[in-house]
C-alpha cells in the first residue's frame, strides 16, 4: 500500500498530549513520586521503595475502610438499580407528565454535593430536623450522630435520594426508544406484563443499564462529600470510607507517602472493579 509518511502530523496531537499531561499524567506521577519516598519536612526526601505500599496493604484501617466501601456500593446498587428501573417503567411516556417528571427527577442531580450533605445533615437532626424529629416523635430511637446503624441508613438513603434519578433518566431514555410496534406485537402474542419487561424492555435497556451500573459503582466507591458533611466519618470510624480516610491521612496527618500509596492502590482497585463489571456485563450481552 502506498502511504504518505509525514511526521509533522504528530504536531496535530500535541495540544491533546499537553492537556492530558497537565490534567492527568503529571499529577499522577507526582503521586507516584510521593508514594516511593519519605520526608521529614524541609523538602528533603528519602527513597522508601515499596515500604508505603506494604504498610497500606497490611493496615487494618485501610481494609476496614475498603470493606465499608464495598458494602456501601453493593447496598446502593442493589437499591438504586431496581428502584430506578421501577420508576422509569412507571413514568408517563407522553403528555404533560413527561416534562414534570423529568424536571423532578433531574432536581437532585443539579444540587451541589456538599449542599446535599448539608440538607440531609439538617434534615436528620433530632432537635430541629424534619426527619430526625419526626422519627423521634414516632418513638424511634433515631440518632445518626451516635448510632452507627442510623448513620449508615442516613448516608444510604441520602445517596438513594441523590442518585436514583440518574438511573431513572438513563433507563427512561432506553425505554422511550422502544417502538410502539413491540408493545403491540407483545399484546398480540399474549405476553404478560412480566414477559414484556423480560423480553422487550430489559434487553432494550441493557446498554444504558451497563452505563448506569458502572457510573453508580464508580461514584459510590469514591464517595466523599456527602458522608463527610453529614457524619464526618463517624460515629467512630463507622462511616469512614476510603476517600475520607485518604483525606484524613494526607491532610489531617500530613502523611504524604502513605496517602500517595493509598491513592494509587485505591485508583487501581476502582479500575480493576470497573473492568470486571464491564467485562462481565458485555460478555453476558454478547452471549445473548
Amino acid at each position, binding site marked *: 500500500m502506498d502511504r504518505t509518511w509525514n511526521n509533522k502530523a504528530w504536531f496535530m496531537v500535541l495540544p491533546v498530549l499537553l492537556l492530558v499531561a497537565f490534567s492527568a499524567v503529571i499529577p499522577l506521577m507526582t503521586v507516584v513520586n510521593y508514594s516511593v519516598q519519605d520526608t521529614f519536612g524541609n523538602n528533603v526526601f528519602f527513597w522508601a521503595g515499596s515500604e508505603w505500599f506494604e504498610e497500606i496493604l497490611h493496615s487494618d484501617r485501610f481494609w476496614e475502610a475498603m470493606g465499608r466501601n464495598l458494602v456501601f456500593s453493593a447496598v446502593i446498587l442493589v437499591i438504586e438499580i431496581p428502584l430506578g428501573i421501577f420508576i422509569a417503567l412507571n413514568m408517563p411516556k407522553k403528555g404533560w407528565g413527561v416534562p414534570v417528571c423529568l424536571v423532578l427527577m433531574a432536581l437532585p442531580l443539579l444540587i451541589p454535593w456538599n449542599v446535599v450533605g448539608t440538607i440531609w445533615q439538617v434534615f436528620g437532626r433530632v432537635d430541629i430536623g424534619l426527619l430526625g424529629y419526626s422519627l423521634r416523635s414516632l418513638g424511634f430511637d433515631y440518632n445518626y450522630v451516635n448510632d452507627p446503624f442510623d448513620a449508615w441508613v442516613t448516608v444510604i438513603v441520602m445517596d438513594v435520594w441523590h442518585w436514583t434519578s440518574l438511573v431513572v433518566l438513563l433507563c427512561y431514555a432506553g425505554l422511550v426508544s422502544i417502538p410502539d410496534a413491540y408493545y403491540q*406485537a407483545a399484546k*398480540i402474542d399474549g405476553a404478560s406484563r412480566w414477559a414484556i419487561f423480560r423480553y422487550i424492555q430489559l434487553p432494550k435497556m441493557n446498554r444504558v443499564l451497563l452505563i448506569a451500573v458502572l457510573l453508580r459503582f464508580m461514584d459510590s466507591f469514591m464517595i466523599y462529600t456527602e458522608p463527610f458533611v453529614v457524619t464526618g466519618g463517624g460515629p467512630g470510624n463507622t462511616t469512614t470510607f476510603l476517600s475520607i480516610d485518604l483525606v484524613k491521612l494526607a491532610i489531617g496527618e500530613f502523611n504524604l507517602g502513605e496517602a500517595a500509596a493509598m491513592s494509587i492502590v485505591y485508583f487501581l482497585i476502582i479500575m480493576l472493579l470497573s473492568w470486571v463489571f464491564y467485562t462481565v456485563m458485555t460478555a453476558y450481552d454478547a452471549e445473548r
Partner: protein
Amino acid sequence: MARIDCNHIRHAYGPHPKSDKDFALKEVHHAFEDGGAYALLGPSGCGKTTLLNIISGLLYPSHGELLFDGKDVTNLSTQERNIAQVFQFPVIYDTMTVYDNLAFPLRNRGVPEPDVDRKVRETLEMTGLADMAKKKARGLTADQKQKISLGRGLVRSDVNAILFDEPLTVIDPHMKWVLRSQLKQLHRRFGFTMVYVTHDQTEALTFAENVVVMYEGEIVQIGSPAELFERPKHTFVGYFIGSPGMNVMPVEVEGRSARLGSQTIELPGVPKAGTAGAIELGIRPEYVRLGASGMPVSIRKVEDIGRHKVVRASFEGRDIAAIVGEDEDIPADPRIAFDPAGINLYADSWRVEMGG
C-alpha cells in the same frame, strides 16, 4: 379463520370529533370474507392503518362495531380476538432464538410443551426457517426477521386473521418478490383470511384477490385488480392505480357526446344518471391511441421506460399521457383518438354508468 364484518366503523383520534374532517376513518362498512386475501391500498394518511388497528384491537373505534364470524368482538382485547399482525418493521424478541420466538405466543397461552414443539416445527418448515431454529433472532437479516414476525402469527392454528401493515417496507426489492409469492402460496395452501395494508399498487395488485382502495378515510372502491384498472369508481382510483395514472379532464356532456374545448368526443353510451355538477372524462393512457388521425395534440416529451413509451402531450390546453408501443413511431403531425372501451365518465369525482 373467520369472516370479519366492519359495521359502520368510524374513528377519530381527537376526543370530540365535530365535522367529518376530524375523523381519520369516516365510515367503513364492509365485510372481509373468510379465507379471502385483501389488500388495503391508499396513500399515507388515508386511514388504512387505522382500520387495520381497529380490526386487531389495538385501537378502539369511536363508532360502529366489529364482528368475527357474526360475533361482536368490539369490546374484546387484542389477545382475546386471536389475530396475528405483522408490522412495518420486524418485531422480534432479540434475546431469544428463532425457535423460542415462534414458541412465545403459544407458551404465553399455556400450551403444553409437546404441542408447542410440534407447532413450532411445522411453522419453521412453512416459513423456511428450519435450519436457523437454534440461532439468536437478533443476528438475522430483515427478511428473515419479518418471516419470524409472520411465523409467530402462523404458529397459532386458530388465528382468526393475519393482518399485515406494510410488511415489506424494509425488505430489499428482490426479496420482496420472494416473500410476496411465499405469502400467496401460504394463503393458497392454508386459506388464512389475510388483510394486507400497503401504499404500493404493485404489491396490492399482485397479492390480493380483492383490493380495497381507501382515500381520505373512506373506502372508494373494492374490486379485483382488473376492475380497478378498467372501471375506476372514483377519479382518485384512476390517478392512484396505473403508471402513469388516468387522464381526467372536465367535459360538457350532451347525449352521447362530450365536448372538450373545440373537440367532440364520442361516448360509448348515454350517461344513465343526471349529469349535473362537475363532469369529467377519464381515460387511461393505455386507451389513448396516438396516430395520424383524430384530434390534434402537441407532444411535450416522450419517456422511454423500456417496455413501452409514455408520451406526454398537450391536448386542448391540458396535459394528457398516452402509452405507445416500444417499436411504434411518433408521427410528425400527432393526433389522438380515444378507444371507447376505455372511456369513463365522472360526476363530482364518482363514476357514472353509461348505457345504450
